[in-house]
Each structure stands twice: as C-alpha cells, then as structure tokens.
C-alpha cells in the first residue's frame, strides 16, 4: 500500500512539485521572518561582540546596552585600569535615540569615542575617517546608500549639526544603527564631560572573566560588571523578548498555511484516487493501511516542501542582502531544526482530512462504472 501511495504520488511529478513548492512558500515565509529577526538580533549586539572585551562595566542597576542609559564617573575607568588583573580598559559614552540623516530619523546607538581608547570605534570602514573629531560623525554606509548622503554632508543629532567624515561597514540595522561621534561632542550634549557610559575591560592572560567581574563589583563602588558573554546574552534576550511574539505569530501563520496546503494536497490526492482506494478496501486493505498510505503522501509532500524551502531560502539569503542592503538576515541551524520539527505534525495534521475521507470510503463503489 505504501508502495502504491509513493508510486501514485511520483507518477505525476509536476503535480507533486507544484504541491511541494506551495508548501515550500509557507515554510520560506517562516524561515524568512525568522532570518530577519535573527539577523536583527545579531546586529543589535554586533558592537558588543566586535569590541571583544572580557568584562563590561556600567552603572549599578544597568545590565543592558539596548534601550538603556548608563553613567559612570571617568575616574572609575582609571581605577579599574590600575587593577593588577586588568591589562587594558577602553570606555565610551553612549545614548540611543533618533539621528536625522538625509531628512529621516534613524533610531541609532550613538557612541562617543576618543582617540585615547583604541578598539572603541568602527571596526570596518567603507570610506573616510574612522575617528570623528568635534562636530563630526561616522555613519553606516547602508544609510548613505539609502539616503544618498555622502561624506561632507550634514546630519543632526539632538539639534546639533554634525558633518559626516566616514562611512562604516556592518553597523546598520533597521532598529538600531551605530553612529560614532567624538566623546567630547556627546559629553557636551549629555552634560557628562567627565563621565562614561560603559567601560570595556581586557583582562591579563589567565585571569577568569567572571572572577574579574566580581572583583570589579567589590572594588569599585556603584557599578555593575558583567562578563562579555553575560552582557551580550542579556542584550540578545531583550531583543528576543521584543521580537519573539511577532516571530512566534509569523511562525504560527506559516505553519498553519503549510498545514492547509498539505491538507489540501493530501485531500485532493485522496479525492482523485477514491476509486483506487475503494478497490484497495474491497481487496481487503484496512482503514489503517489506507490512512498510512495517505499519511506517507503528506509526509513526502511536506518533507519535499521543506527541502525546497531550505534550498530556496539559502539562495535568497545569499542574494537578498546585495539587493536590499537594509535587511540583516541570519540563518542558524536551530531555525531549521525548529521548522523540521514542525514538519511531521504538519503532515499528520494535514492527513487527518484525508483520513476522514478514507474512513467514509465505500468499497461498494468498485461496482460503479
């Protein structure tokens, strides 16, 4: 019966491919939304990752960078730098908010950097100067491409005009791009000339980051210190919380769509082969065996749909960023695992429609011409 079901399915390859492609479309939707979300989430922590610090120090009570505000006296950076376990520190002033570029507000991480601390600025440049001075800014290259602004053009940050001196790579995100300005400029604006927001700590070789973070919390008053791993995880968690509901909903819609398509395919296949199934019933095959045949067809269509979805997604994900630079896409194995895990329930659920038809199938129809 299983052989019959697969042979019947593959005897009409065009119909099978169209059905599988329809299923693939719904899975691609899920993969695409998931990839956008994952890409955006990764982009939100890209600065933290690129800095490669061992420990991040911030104002007490703060444990995030995204949507957070932190102020730490600058002498605390010096004090941390003097600890024997610390090899080097770097510090930035930071705020998040809208920056007007090319007539449009872009929600950005504005990072105030100073030449005394290496590593705090952009890590990859497309064009221009990576270290903005007073009245200057480095913006993401993608915003320049999208708005047409160039080096030398003006942008506005809290009513203060700044001249673009550099275009950075890998710093654009739909929800939080990174704009670099001079620490002095930002300190002026935030009235925090003698303050930092975050201090990056680089430990001496062999020093445990977690122990160092604990030590800093004990030694330095009113600060929070997190290992880089914990700090990134905390920001990523925030991103997930913000987008998880949307992604869950999109996944549900995609899965529902896939289920409906597979159900329709399974049902139409059963409906078209009713007479043959009635023959099988008359010859002595039971409802269970016939239902398994219908299920196997659903599973094949669904798995084939998933394979198509993966192939098409990978092709699209390679090609899309070049065409639509503002989209950050990222595919990880766990996303495919999650989709692969819903595949079987989708196939089973979809074949239930066919099961009803199988159960009602009258073997007496074999006598009809």
């Amino acid at each position, binding site marked *: 019966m299983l052989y019959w079901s697969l042979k019947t399915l593959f005897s009409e390859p065009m119909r099978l491919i169209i059905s599988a492609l329809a299923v693939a479309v719904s899975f691609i939707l899920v993969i695409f939304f998931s990839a956008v979300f994952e890409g955006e989430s990764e982009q939100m922590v890209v600065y933290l990752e690129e800095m490669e610090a061992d420990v991040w120090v911030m104002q007490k009570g703060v444990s995030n960078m995204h949507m957070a505000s932190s102020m730490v006296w600058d002498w605390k950076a010096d004090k941390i730098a003097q600890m024997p376990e610390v090899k080097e520190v770097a510090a930035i002033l930071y705020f998040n908010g809208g920056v007007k570029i090319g007539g449009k507000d872009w929600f950005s991480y504005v990072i105030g950097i100073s030449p005394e601390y290496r590593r705090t600025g952009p890590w990859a440049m497309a064009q221009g100067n990576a270290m903005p001075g007073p009245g200057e800014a480095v913006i993401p290259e993608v915003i320049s491409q999208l708005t047409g602004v160039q080096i030398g053009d003006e942008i506005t940050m809290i009513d203060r005009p700044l001249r673009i001196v550099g275009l950075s790579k890998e710093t654009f995100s739909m929800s939080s791009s990174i704009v670099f300005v001079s620490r002095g400029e930002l300190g002026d604006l935030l009235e925090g000339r003698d303050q930092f927001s975050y201090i990056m700590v680089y430990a001496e070789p062999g020093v445990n980051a977690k122990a160092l973070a604990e030590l800093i919390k004990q030694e330095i008053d009113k600060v929070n210190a997190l290992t880089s791993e914990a700090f990134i995880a905390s920001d990523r968690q925030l991103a997930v919380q913000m987008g998880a509901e949307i992604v869950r909903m999109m996944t549900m819609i995609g899965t529902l769509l896939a289920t409906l398509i597979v159900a329709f395919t399974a049902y139409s296949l059963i409906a078209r082969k009713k007479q043959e199934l009635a023959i099988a019933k008359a*010859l002595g095959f039971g409802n269970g065996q016939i239902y398994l045949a219908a299920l196997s067809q659903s599973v094949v269509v669904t798995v084939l749909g998933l394979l198509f979805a993966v192939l098409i997604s990978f092709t699209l994900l390679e090609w899309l960023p070049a065409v639509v630079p503002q989209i950050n896409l990222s595919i990880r194995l766990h996303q495919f695992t999650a989709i692969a895990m819903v595949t079987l329930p989708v196939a089973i659920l979809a074949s239930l429609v066919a099961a009803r038809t199988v159960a009602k199938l009258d073997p007496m129809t074999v006598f009809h011409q």
Partner: protein
Amino acid sequence: MNTDTLLKAIALNKYFGQGDALVRAVENVSLEIRRGEMVLIMGPSGSGKTTLLSMLGALLSPTSGQIAIAGTDISSMKAAALAALRAQKIGFVFQAFNLLEALSVEENILFPAQLSAEGVQGARERLDELLERLGLTTRRKALPNTLSGGEKQRVAIARALINKPPIILADEPTGNLDSHKGQEVMMILHDIARDEGCAVLMVTHDPRVEEIADRVLWLEDGALRDRKSEQHSWVTDPVCGMRVDEWTASVTTEYNDKKFVFCSARCLSRFNAQPERYLNETKHRVQD
C-alpha cells in the same frame, strides 16, 4: 456443511430505507456453491444482482440471514476481520477492470499479495505462472493505460487469483469487452474454476455465458426464481452479430424509434458512432 461447499447463503435479506420508502433489494435468498462450480446470477437490471454479490463478497452486511465463506460464518464478523477474510478467501473481478493506474501489470497483480501470509516475495512464482497462463508475460511491465480492454480484464483476473482464493466473484466481467474478448475472459474463468477448484460466482447479462456455466440463478425483484433455459427472447447485436437475450440485456439504445440490444458497452459505442453503417450491415446479413 459439505466440505466442497465454498459459499453458502441462508435466507439472505437486504432492505434499504424505511416505511413507504423501503426497498427490498434482496429477499430471502439461499444458495450454495461448491468447489469447481461456475454459477451465474442473471436477471433484469435493478433485480438486486450486485447487492447480492456485494453481500456474498463481505462488502455489504445483510439485513438478516447468514453467509458462510469457506466454512466461516461471517454474520458477526467486524469490519477488520471481514477485510482480512476478503484478502484471503475472495478474488474480485469487476466490469470496469479497476486496475491501479500508477502500477505496472505485475505490480497490479501482486497488489493483494501484500495481504497474504507469504507476502509479495512469496507470490512471485505464482505471478509468473499467472502471467504465462493469461498470456501477459510480455506485458508485465506495461502500465494499465497502454493495455487493451481484454488485457486489462486478464490482469484483473490474475490479481483476483494471486492469493489463491477459493472463491472468485465477478461482476459483469465481459461488460466492457467485445464479443471475442468477452468469450476469451469467460473461458479463462471457466478453466480457473475447473483447474484450481475455485467457486466462480458471476453476475452477468451475457446469455452466451450460460452455455459454459454449471448453473444459472435467476434473480428477479430481489428473489431467486426458476427460469427455464428456453425462456429467452433472442435478438441480434447489430454490431457484432451475436445472439443477445433481450429480456436480460442491459446495454440497449433507441435509434429512429427502434430499440437495439447489444452484447456489450463497446458494441453500443461503436453503434453510436456509425449507426447507419451497422443498420446497413444488418440488412445485408438478413438478405444473405
């Protein structure tokens, strides 16, 4: 029950509907078919032949009465047990052939073997034997849509025989075949009954079959009645020239206010395509 009795029905009744809409499709039918016997059920259209065949084939439950298949009383059997019984004890041959379109000739024949104790592999020898016997050896890999009507029916017969069932039930097996192919199929079924010791029960309108059948049961208004063999109304099929019993024929048409009777649907479709040609040929045949 006699050990040679393979199929036995006692006081079978099948009613459909209720009250004024009650239809007595089969009424008080008792019969017994023995090993090696070929029995025909004949009767006018709507007389309950297919309903009776369905009950005897364990496809339809009787309203009352008893059926024993190869010595097993099936009256109280559940659907799953009936399905298993059909797989082991009954071979079906249908008017519409009912082959599985995606499967080749040999795959179609082996299809019910999945349900037998020896399985598909164990049935391969039997498959070769049947292909040889039914002249299908060169067509074993062919798909049903490339076969002629006669070949399709031979495949259906081979499929019915693959599990060596003691009972073969055939529903109008010659209905879609021309007279020559129909005759060939009838002879195959007759030989099977004789050589394999099966009981062949056949519903048919084809009076030519009467000559090779061991017994003819006449069903009218759902009940078995006696009918003497001379009670026929013979007419000639205008297409193939075969003798057809007008009383029992189901394939008929009207042309120029005249009724024409055919031995098969195939002859009817040929007639419908070129009625004048066949009427002329009939005229010449009469003059000759």
